[in-house]
């Protein structure tokens, strides 16, 4: 079988060929197509799709640092907030950017969101260089600290920017700076596709292997030649960048921001989706976010009031008994001699 494997995977090692052989890729393509079909055929409302894309977006963003490198960032909502505030403040105060965001079938909004993402990424890179020296719970606690630091700083700074209009940390965009939903959809969709591609590429690249090695045993990885510090910072920065972009477009969708964007609740969403779906894969967060979306709705319908209590219990069961999540669990099995992990990655 080992020999057969050799032939399958190809000793010539064409990277492209390697990517194309993965059924995962096909699944991902179908997920993207599903979103498009739902949108174009009008089978599902824009807001439902936006919510699905938002969930998927934040899960896949956090996945880069939590799923691959094993650093559980409990305060990751900080980048959601940074991205959101960066976006709204930019279009609030800078007229050219406000004009740009309405152009090019959503490409303009996408570009402004990239700027917002870059701001989040810059913070992630500089802060990451410091906090990524910490491991495990200390890292988690430090990110929570970051989140609250940012929250309170924004609460302090935002009202000063325009004392007439901004109270607390709430900003709403003036009527002429709101973007049509269709354009926001396009920008979000583009972001999601790129995010999926980045996740998939990382998973299949030496970078991803290095991150996984860091997750398994950072010291061993370091000695084996993995440039751990650099890899961690790059992963954290990427995660910050995409979370920031999603946060920016999420705020644009709502026409404004307030401090709830920093809520630990958002971090909770991200972590739960990854934990349910399975750490360290691309499919994990994708499936996890879909399950979470459905679960959330389902529990809401049948058990209103206690829905989130049940969710907590489900998470506990997953953590205690299926610590690797759905995909992680499937990866361990074979179907008719084929290791599912070959198909699921």
């Amino acid at each position, binding site marked *: *079988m*080992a020999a057969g494997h050799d032939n399958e995977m190809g000793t010539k090692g064409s990277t492209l060929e390697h990517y194309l052989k993965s059924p995962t890729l096909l699944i991902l393509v179908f997920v993207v197509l599903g979103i498009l079909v739902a949108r174009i055929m009008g089978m599902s409302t824009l807001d439902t799709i936006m919510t699905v894309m938002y969930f998927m977006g934040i899960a896949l963003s956090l996945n880069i640092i939590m799923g691959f490198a094993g650093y559980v960032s409990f305060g990751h909502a900080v980048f959601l907030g940074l991205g959101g505030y960066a976006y709204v403040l930019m279009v609030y105060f800078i007229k050219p950017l406000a004009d740009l965001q309405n152009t090019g079938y959503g490409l303009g909004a996408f570009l402004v969101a990239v700027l917002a993402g870059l701001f989040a990424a810059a913070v992630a890179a500089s802060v990451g260089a410091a906090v990524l020296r910490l491991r495990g719970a200390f890292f988690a606690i430090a990110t929570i600290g970051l989140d609250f630091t940012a929250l309170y700083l924004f609460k302090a700074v935002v009202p000063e920017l325009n004392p007439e209009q901004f109270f607390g940390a709430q900003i709403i965009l003036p009527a002429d700076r709101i973007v049509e939903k269709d354009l926001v959809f396009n920008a979000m969709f583009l972001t999601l596709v790129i995010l999926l591609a980045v996740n998939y590429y990382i998973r299949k690249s030496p970078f991803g*292997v290095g991150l996984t090695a860091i997750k398994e045993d950072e010291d061993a990885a370091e*000695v*084996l030649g993995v440039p751990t510090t650099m890899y961690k910072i790059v992963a954290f920065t990427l995660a910050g960048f995409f979370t920031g972009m999603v946060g920016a477009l999420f705020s644009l969708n709502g026409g404004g921001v307030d401090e709830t964007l920093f809520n630990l609740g958002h971090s909770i969403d991200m972590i739960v989706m990854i934990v349910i779906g399975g750490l360290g894969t691309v499919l994990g967060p994708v499936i996890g976010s879909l399950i979470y979306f459905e679960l959330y709705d389902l529990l809401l319908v049948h058990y209103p009031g206690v829905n989130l209590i049940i969710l907590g219990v489900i998470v506990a069961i997953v953590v205690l008994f299926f610590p690797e999540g759905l995909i992680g669990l499937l990866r361990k099995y074979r179907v008719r001699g084929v290791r599912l992990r070959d198909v699921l990655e």
Partner: protein
Amino acid sequence: MEEILVVDGVTKRFGGLVANNKVSFSMRRGEILGLIGPNGAGKTTLFNVITGVYRPDEGRVIFKGEDITGKPPHVITRKGIAKTHQIVKPFNDMTVLENAMVGALFGKRAHQITIGQAKEIARRSLELVGLADKADEFAVKLTLRQKKMLELARALSAEPELLLLDEVLAGLNPKEIEEALEIIKKVKVERDLSIIMIEHVMHAVMNIADRIVVLHFGWKIAEGTPEEVANNPEVITAYLGDPRYALRFVKRKGGGE
């Protein structure tokens, strides 16, 4: 013959404790160097200094004529030094093959090879250490001996010129030790390696090493062929404690037990 590694006056302190005190030695390409000494002598610390995990307080490490002192571990690994861990550190949730692939991807040819090529390199290393049939198992399921061999395969995948083995034989039974020694010998020839090994299994290291360096409380107290070291009175009193042991090692070496 060219000197592949020069350790020049390396001192490493941890607070008040001096783990390495002006340790100097050099080794030639193709040599197997044994590094022995009682627990706490500073052997693993010295490995960590060579691989860049620790930065020495004084002294230099020169690899192939280049000063690599204080460079980060991943840079040093890429220059051609690989190390196995005293306590095995397999990546438990990765397969054996993937474990070895990490070595290949971040070893000498880091960033120059594709995943496919890395797989092939990894596979060859696994074959060398006799783990080819376990390639698709998760590392967590291996026995201790297999894990030790996996450490070796992972290091080999990096395609090093200098291999540092930290107690690779510890915890193995006599039969496994013999097998492991055979593998090390085979690997050395096939890969044209230079090897430094920390070892407590005395007869093994006496048997396999060309030269031996003895550390004691951070100091180098002796250096030479196994016979010279075994007969060195300082080593005998400081390390072996009982002269009769030394005699037995020499006999074994001569008799090829």
